[in-house]
């Protein structure tokens, strides 16, 4: 049963990850339903992301969705601090990591929701304005 759930949870998060929306933010809470320590969950997330990312990048390159200009300004500082983050995580307790991840998810979720709702409201207003101006022109 656990093997089935691992594959299923992996598949669901892979869909989100393949779209570049942050599959880890889905996989980590799903794996927390199983009896696995937080640090192991995080390691599973990191390792399983690597082959998926290679495959997804192949598809995105084929669909001409990659814009690598200026990417070095992001990659180099991110790599340096990723090592530091992983070393700090090794020293941290599982519960601390779990609560930090939960707080991060809540913060990002609320922020994404605000952005998405604002975008939807703006689109709705634009649509209403354009249909009103069409009616006025008639």
């Amino acid at each position, binding site marked *: 049963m656990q093997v089935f759930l*691992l594959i299923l949870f992996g598949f669901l998060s892979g869909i989100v990850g393949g779209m570049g929306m942050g599959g880890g933010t889905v996989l980590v809470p799903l794996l927390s339903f199983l009896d696995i320590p937080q640090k192991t969950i995080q390691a599973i997330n990191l390792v399983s992301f690597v082959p998926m990312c290679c495959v997804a990048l192949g598809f*995105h390159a084929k669909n001409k969705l990659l814009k690598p200009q200026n990417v070095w300004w992001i990659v180099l500082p991110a790599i340096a601090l990723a090592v530091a983050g992983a070393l700090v995580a090794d020293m941290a307790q599982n519960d601390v990591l779990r609560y930090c991840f939960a707080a991060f998810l809540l913060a990002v979720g609320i922020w994404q929701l605000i952005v998405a709702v604002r975008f939807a409201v703006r689109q709705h207003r634009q649509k209403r304005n354009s249909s009103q101006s069409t009616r006025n022109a008639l």
Partner: protein
Amino acid sequence: MNLTAKNKCFLVALSALAGFVNGFLGGGGGVIVVAEMLAILKLHQKYAQATALLVILPLTVVSAIVYLVKGNVDWIPTLWTSLGVVAGGIAGALLLSKLKGNVAKIIFALVLIAGGIKMFF
């Protein structure tokens, strides 16, 4: 696109944060990377999401190596999960080029909030 000195500073600071989050929490850095690609590099949503993977791959490899060296990787559940993640990743990559509208974003945000609440209790 030519970056101003101010934008370069923002990129470096936010990327450092994304890297730390990714290493410390074992994921989540991609959300910050996508945000900076949208806000500073002015990429469209689809391009930002795809190109973010180009950034997340090396920093995930580096973080994974640290977790591996520190003995935090349990290979059996990792391999089963990877099987599902790769299959899902192919589906997700194919879906991205067909993705329309704002609905996916709202669903994703609600999933994140639900996940956060679940992990607190």
